Structure formats: C-alpha cells, structure tokens
C-alpha cells in the first residue's frame, strides 16, 4: 500500500509539471514581459526581498512555497488557541444534513 502511494505521488508530481506547460500553452500567446522590482525607494528587509526577486525567481519561489504553509500553520495554531480559550469544542461535530 505504501509503495502504491509513493508511486501515485510520483506520478502526480510529474503530471503536475507536464500539465502546467500544457495549461500555459492553452492561454493566449503573451508577449515576453519581464517585471523588475524597483529597489531605489526600498531599504532594509524590503530591499533584500526585492533584490532576491530580481536576482532569482527560483529562490523567491522557494521562499514563497516555504513561507506560505509555515505562516499558515502558525496563524492556524494561534487562531486555534484563541478559539479554544473561548470554550468551543474544536475536535468533534455532529454529522447531519438537516
């Protein structure tokens, strides 16, 4: 079963890369557009952030893909704490249609 899931996950990851190319090809042909962040007005972390974007979209993508779930989990846990503090049961519910 474990092997099957590993294979399925592998196929899905591969397919997701293939699908993206086909999906993009499906859209209208866009003229090549390069967006460059203007760093002249920026200082500190903002300048670092914009420079990272300008220098490498790969690193910027990695930063995004790691940051979003991590921040999501942290914010979710904080909201959990607040909700639990109010006194709501956050682990069970009654399954009913009406």
């Amino acid at each position, binding site marked *: 079963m474990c092997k099957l899931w590993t294979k399925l996950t592998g196929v899905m990851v591969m397919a997701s890369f293939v699908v993206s190319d086909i999906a993009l090809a499906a859209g209208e042909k866009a003229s090549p557009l390069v967006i460059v962040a203007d760093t002249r007005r920026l200082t500190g972390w903002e300048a670092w952030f914009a420079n990272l974007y300008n220098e490498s*979209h790969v690193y*910027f993508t990695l930063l995004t893909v790691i940051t979003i779930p991590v921040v999501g989990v942290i914010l979710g846990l904080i909201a959990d704490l607040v909700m639990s503090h109010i*006194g709501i049961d956050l682990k069970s519910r*009654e399954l009913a249609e009406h």
Partner: protein
Amino acid sequence: MDWLYVLMPISGVTVFWPGLVILGVGVGIIGGFFGMGGAWMVTPGLNILGFPMAFAIGTDIAHMAGKSLISTMRHGRFGNVDYRLGFIMLIGTVVGFEVGAQMIMWLERLGKVELYVRWMYVVLLILIAWMIFSDVVKKRKKEREARAAGMDVEKLATGIEWHKTLHKIKIPPVIHFKAAGFYCSAWLPIFVSFLTGWLAGILGIGGGLIRMPALIYFIGCPTHIAVGTDLFEVMISGLYGAATYTYKGRTELLAALIMLVGAAVGAQIGTVATKYIKGYGIRIAFGVAVIGCCISIIMKLIPRYIAGTKVAMDITSTVLILGLVGALSLYIFIKMLQGAREEIAVRKGKT
C-alpha cells in the same frame, strides 16, 4: 493616514492594507465554509485595491494555499476530510485539467474561446443551482411525507440520491471511504474528478465551485465531508499554483501574507460555522453563491450584445460580487456566534 498604506516591494504599488485584511477575512470565511478557493471573489477585489491583474491572480493563489491549509487542518480535526478520496480524486483532476487545457487550444484556433467559455460557465452554474434547489425541494417533500406517516427522517437522508445508483456499479477495485462512510468503485471518484478537472481546465478556474456539488451529488459525500475533502484538494493545487505563479514573477508575497492574517481568522470562523449549520444550510448558502457568481458572469457578457454598457456592467458586477461576499460572510459569522454561544451555555450548565 499614511500608516494605512503599505508599499508592495515587488509590484511597486501602494496598497490600503486593511482592505487586504478584510478581503482575507471574507474569503477565509466563505472558503472554509463552502470548501473552495474563491478566486472568483478575490481577484477582482485585489484588482480594485490597485494590483495589476497578473499580480492579483498570483497573489490570490499564494494566499489561497495558506488559507486552505488552515481550513483543512481544522476540518481534518473535525473528521471532515476523507484523505483517501482526496488523493484518488487528484488523479482524475490532473488528467482532466490537461484534457480541458487541450480543448481550450482547439477553441482558441476557432477564435471564439472567451465567448464560448463564458457561456459554458453560465450554463454550468445554472445547472448547479438547479441541482441544489431541486434537491432542497425533494428533501422537504420527503420530510413532509415522513411527518405525515408519523416517522422521522434519517440524519443523513437527502433529496437527490443519484449517488446510490452510481454506487451500485462495482467495477474493481471497490474501496471503503471511511470518513465519507461508503463503499464504491475507485473508478467513480476518478471519473467524476476527471469531469470536474476537465471543466476547470476549460473554464480556467480552481474547480472548487464544481467539485463540491459533484462530491455531494455524484459521489455521495455528506455535505461536511464534501467541504473538507474539497479543501484538501484546493490546498494541494493552491501550493502548486503558488509555486508556478511565483516562478513567473507574478506573486506579491507581502500582500499574500497580510491577507493570510485575515484569512486565518476567517478560515476558523467559516470552518467552525460548519459545526453549527447542518448540511442543507450549507447547500442552500452555496446555491445562493452560485447564483450570484452566475449573474456576475452574465453582466460581463451583456456589453457584447448592448454597446456602451461595459463600464456600468463592470462596476455592477464588482459591487454584486463584493456585496455577496459581505452578506454571506456576515450570515456565516452570525450563525457561528449563535452556535458557539449555545454550546458554551450548555457546557456551563453541565459543570
């Protein structure tokens, strides 16, 4: 009041940040409650706040991944996510999306892709709305008949029961979906997700709007499980979408994070509200959202046939979408508050 505005380092636009938080809360509530990403609500909202369209789409997808993760965590703890069903459906979704994208290429060669897609979307949404409301009518009729016979209706009884017929097709492998509570051929969810993925590929949408009712009416998931399982799929596709859009340089990460702060609160409210609103309450509210979405698309089509109405229709459809998001969020929030208050009162009464 300069502190209310923040400069987005990548796109270079200055944005009213409380607007991002409010948008995050609204879509968090609705996404957590209905089990969908809600790109059709957020993208126009971000565009209004000042983001160029490409950044509006990329930023929306990045925030959607985080928001769906929060909602899926909560739904998972409630037992609302059937992970096995979610993984199996991913296969059909990916393949279906590819076929849909190929069809768009073919339609593009015909030169009428946008018009066909919009009309197809309208027809599809009308069908979904019809399905939901005829289901509600049938369920009420069953309830009346049961009451007249002096009997009670089962907790999970529904009006439309197409899934019962589909479950009789026993092509191997037949799998037990524990959380959803039924046995069926694995080919049924694969086929249904292929169809929903194909439609999503053609329409250029995430697919939650189609997948949620498909999970209920064709696969037979109880409403709460359909919401949770759909969110699980939205989370995975959202993460992939965030990666691909960011790689193309169209994501404003700072805006996504600000929205996520609001969405963390909204997603909890929306998800916890499913604890207090029964399945048919969710279905009816979803039907209302579908009708609103359909009207907004029809408004986008009107200028094609009546000249000089573009500006008015654009403004009206945006107001309609944002008004609908606001009204539905308020309804869900009030129901959640009422439910929580009752639960806390019962608990206090016991201790």
